[in-house]
């Protein structure tokens, strides 16, 4: 095989992209209290220690509650929007969809402080619930992007054919549209779950005294002695994200195959 300069560059780029993720488990299993080279030897100790931190367990529970709620909420809202965007024409469509997708590019700090200021002004306590709202806003564009891919692949005459064969609109949606977009829905649920689980800024601003996992991690970063445990926790989080991502991508591809289409690319 011929070696192309561009190919070499691509490989180096991947090294750059993966450098942090590869280092993470190295330090997590390193039998030393300092996060630096050279490595000292293998240990499970830091992972074992994770079991003895009540604050961590609480944060994990908070994060899981939030991530599950956000996944469901954002996917439901995203389904409506994605369906409207692919199937209907309505006035100001571009503007409305652009506005809903805005959190994708807006700096998170802006979203976070504007939400915080409103909550403070309304005299509401920040809590898990407020984080759920903030994360849903953030995840909705991703859900829409994924679901739009599923809905856009549907030939509109499929729905008409179902109606023509005697089904009502609702029946057509249930029997034809839904089965075809289920893989997209599952992919959207998983992606929203991952985003919410990893999201820091909004959680940091809105968490009050109910920290999420990333907020807990942020607090620990200040203490050098806690860093090996943080590495262990980070390894678990990253591994979980990657596993969920592979599952999500599998579902998305299955959905495309079901419709007899070729894979056109990844998420986003």
């Amino acid at each position, binding site marked *: 095989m011929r070696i192309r300069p561009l190919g070499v560059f691509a490989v180096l780029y991947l090294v750059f992209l993966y450098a942090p993720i590869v280092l993470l488990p190295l330090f997590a299993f390193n039998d030393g209290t300092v996060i630096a080279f050279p490595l000292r030897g293998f240990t499970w100790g830091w992972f074992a220690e994770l079991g003895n931190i009540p604050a961590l367990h609480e944060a994990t529970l908070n994060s899981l509650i939030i991530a599950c709620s956000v996944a469901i909420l954002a996917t439901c809202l995203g389904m409506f929007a994605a369906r409207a965007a692919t199937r209907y024409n309505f006035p100001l469509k571009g503007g409305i969809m652009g506005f809903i997708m805005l959190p994708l590019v807006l700096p998170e700090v802006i979203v976070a402080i504007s939400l915080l200021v409103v909550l403070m002004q309304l005299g509401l306590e920040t809590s898990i619930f407020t984080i759920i709202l903030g994360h849903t806003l953030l995840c909705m564009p991703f859900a829409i992007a994924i679901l739009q891919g599923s809905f856009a692949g549907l*030939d509109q*005459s*499929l729905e*008409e*054919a*179902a*109606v*023509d*064969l*005697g*089904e*009502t609109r609702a029946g057509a949606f249930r*029997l*034809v549209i839904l*089965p*075809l977009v289920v893989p997209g829905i599952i992919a959207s649920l998983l992606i929203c779950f991952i985003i919410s689980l990893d999201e820091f800024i909004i959680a940091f601003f809105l968490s009050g005294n109910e920290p999420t996992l990333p907020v807990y991690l942020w607090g620990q970063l200040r203490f050098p002695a806690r860093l090996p445990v943080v590495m262990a926790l980070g390894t678990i989080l990253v591994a979980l994200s990657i596993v969920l991502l592979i599952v999500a991508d599998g579902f998305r591809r299955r959905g495309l195959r*079901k*419709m*007899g289409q070729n894979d056109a690319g990844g998420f986003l």
Partner: protein
Amino acid sequence: MNLDMNSGPLISLNGVNKYYGDYHALRDISAEIGAGEFFSLLGPSGCGKTTLLRAIAGFEEISGGTITLSGKDMAGVPPNLRPTNMVFQSYAIFPHLSVEQNVGFGLRKSGMGAANKARAIGAALDMVGLGHLGGRAAHALSGGQRQRVALARALILKPKVLLLDEPLSALDRKMREDMQVELMKLQREVGITFVLVTHDQEEALVMSDRIAVMFEGEIAQLADPEELYRRPATKRVADFIGVMNFLPAQAGERLEVAGLGPVDLEGVISPQGAVSGACSVGLRPETLSLLYDGETARSREVRGVVDEVVYYGDMTYYDVRLDGLEAPVRLSMRNTVGRDVLDVGAQARVGWDPRAMVVFPD
């Protein structure tokens, strides 16, 4: 032709109009389609033929007029409650279901038992020649097979009308020709009304009992294929259906045709009534003939020079420049034994017959 003349028309379109905003898509369409008729809507793209079909199916609300099916006004009746079924242009085969599930899709609310359903599905698949493919996944089908599944799926519900939206346009030429014959057989077998939308005039001529030619949302002519071909109502219809040569002419006492000379007005076909003044005379290529040495014209003849030769195997098309005419006329000759194909530039005698002339006012 299997027109059932005893009962009234199955479908009546009465002053049907359709607007999309300011765009007038259907203009005062009125027509009657009989039970058991193979009826085609033919026209160029954008003429409104698909809109009309979808209006009959119930997918488009009409802006004015009425559509009645077996005497019942269809206004406000949704597609799922109309006795019509449709074969979509894309076939709309449900990709997540098997062939059998696709064909049986419409039986869900029929109240049939499982065994009866299976029998009905089997029969429908046999009818379209796919009896062996019932278990196959839909997305693994070829184009021709998809079309058959779409047909079986629609016919299993025993509709009064089968609507077909350009069903053959996605198939290659050979397959299309086979399917034309098969569709005709199928229609005779099931005996229901077929309404076909097509832009392919040959397809419409081959299959239909009657054809409505549409331009810009209006029916330009509604007639059986032979009438449509022989006596086109307007110059535009004549031009759209098949090939027609148009020669400038002047009508007075007699018809003075450029390049051909004077003709009695009596014998010529004049679909728009008596003509006078400047007009056009239409002649189909097959009504003109090259006269070989020793042959004489059955009616009249004229001289010219061969301008272009287009060889088709069974036929040859010649463009012949007639003396005193600017544009060449096209004529077609069967390549029978003993007849040589003429070369470009050869002198030619062309036989023609006034009875084949169709005259249109300009």
